[in-house]
């Protein structure tokens, strides 16, 4: 690993920053599509952390686990995006908008 710019530690830092960006996006954006994108960013931040830690543990017994986990999480993110988009479509069809602004029937 010596000689590379991207050490596992710096990759983990980058992943944390990405995770923060995604979390900020979820709580701050009104457009549901952008919220979906923010969720994807968070999951992919976790993926980046997984593969960088897999590199860190490459010589240990659990070296392959991180990469396997990243593969599973990719599939999971795809499934989540599919369900999320279906829900956004249903909302859009019934309300004509895909923002969180108009979605406030339930409250109290």
């Amino acid at each position, binding site marked *: 690993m010596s000689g590379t710019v991207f050490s596992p530690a710096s990759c983990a830092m980058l992943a944390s920053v990405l995770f923060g960006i995604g979390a900020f996006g979820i709580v701050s954006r009104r457009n549901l599509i952008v919220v979906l994108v923010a969720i994807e960013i968070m999951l992919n931040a976790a993926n980046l952390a997984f593969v960088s830690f897999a590199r860190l543990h490459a010589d240990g017994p659990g070296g392959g686990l991180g990469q*396997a986990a990243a593969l599973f999480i990719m599939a999971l993110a795809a499934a989540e995006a599919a369900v999320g988009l279906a829900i956004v479509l249903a*909302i859009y069809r019934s309300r004509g908008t895909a923002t969180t602004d108009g979605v406030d029937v339930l409250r109290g």
Partner: protein
Amino acid sequence: MDWNGLAHIGPAIVLMLGGAVVAFLGMILRREEGHILPLASLTIVGISAAMLAAAWPGSAWIMPLDAGGAVTSPGMAGAVIRKAFPSDGLAAWASATVLFAAAISLLAAAGSRLHSDKPGEYHALVLLTAAGMLLLSRSGDLLTLLLSLELVSLSTYALCASHRPDPRSGESAMKYFIAGSLGTALLVFGMALFYGATGSLSLAARPLQESYRGLLACGSGLMLAGFLFKAGAAPFHQWVPDVYEGAPTPVTILMAAGIKAAAFAVLARVVVTTLPSSAGPWDSSWAAVLWTSSMLTILVGNAVALRQSSVKRMLAYSGIAHTGYLLIALVGTPGGAESPGRAVAGMLYYLFVYGAAAAGAFGVVSLIRRGGRELETFEDFAGLGRERPAIALCMALFMLSLTGFPPLAGFFAKFAIFRDALARGETALVVTGVLASVVSAAYYLRVIMCMYGSQRRSATHRQSGAAPAVCAGASRPGEISGAMGQTGSAGAATGSAPGAGSGSRPEGDAAASAVQMPLSPAPGGTGAAAGGGRTAGDHASGPDEALDRDAPECSWAAELAIIIPAAAVVVFGVFPGLLGDLISRM
């Protein structure tokens, strides 16, 4: 191939295959053969329960996980499965609760006509959710845990959105999706940090070096936050009321009784197995985090439940409050509890009892309809004791059990958790819990008073009498003491109302008056106007409508969905010994 390992997850495999079969049946069956689907789904749940009983674990309560690396020899598939899915008392009892909740939810769905458009998909999703919950309650590995959790979550998002005509259904699905995805993301990122510190995905993994403890604590903390999100504990509870209220009520049953059980099972496993591995300076802080969350959850859930005008939403907030009581069982267990078994046994008993009572109460909301919609506000329940005495009696039993009145199971569940917490020295939490239970009587008993205490009245008689003030839900934000006082006065009203009602009841029957004035918005302000605002416009005509008499063809199924939990609440309260080793371990 070692088939012994498969026996542990056999119940879940049956549910998944059954889900596929039911989805296929839904495509080929004609509309008039739709009643086959609930029967097939219930049969599959029954088979799964039988397999669970056949493979009931003998000794271990929470199986100690082996922290080592991968299973190396390739022929040991059974060992791999046993490592990824430990079979112990915690998993078995949580699975039993989950299957119970799934059966009740299927019965309630069979009795309501909500899912006539795509019944195959609905039933397949319920079975898949149940399969995911079974796997979740027995996962000993972070990867299986994550995948089964997502199986549950994704199916439930779709189930929440399944009632297309109601815009609230889609809205609840969207809110659940955003909150749930945030929880998932926290969990996944926590898992990544956990893996970085331990080089393993086993729940029992230990840090590779001392210097990794901080990283491990960050990862465990994020994972804990993700679990609290999914369990609906404060400060991550905001999605619960919207989702429980907006989702189709049979789905709410599944969420309140089933997902809560599975989420707490995995939370208990993480608290007992995983959190101590980042011990040292962090040990007491985990207990502090759980303590704070438990306290907040109890206070918020009860305080906000007091001011609800919708019974379904009140039940959702009470679900939050019960999450808080359940968390008490986990506070202090990570530290030095030599036998976490007792606390966990109390938690499992509580989960089952709460699940039964909540499922039954939501079942009542789902079964009884006025004017084609579910009973919603407290006013809608007025007079139920006269119109449907058996259902009202069951509802009263659920409310009393949720409050914790002695002969019923809810009392013993609370007693078990509080006694055990006292033994661990959590006096402040127990005192808060007991006081909160007393306060919770205000909103639970309000339902009973509405059912029995006041006659349903036409618009002309709306202004008179004290009892409607209880049902009208006029307690404003923050008026906890006011609400308590109101309940006190309502107690007096309960005594006086029957006499007054029988004297001044010229309308003869609420049904008759409903025919005469079906759509007159009640003067005197519907109670909903004061409490919610939203319900006023939608349902202003509600209180004057009669109960729907054109019961759906399968209403006996929905009635079973109420009677079975009621029987469970009574029987397991009066004869707790029937729960066998669960009780003997408490």
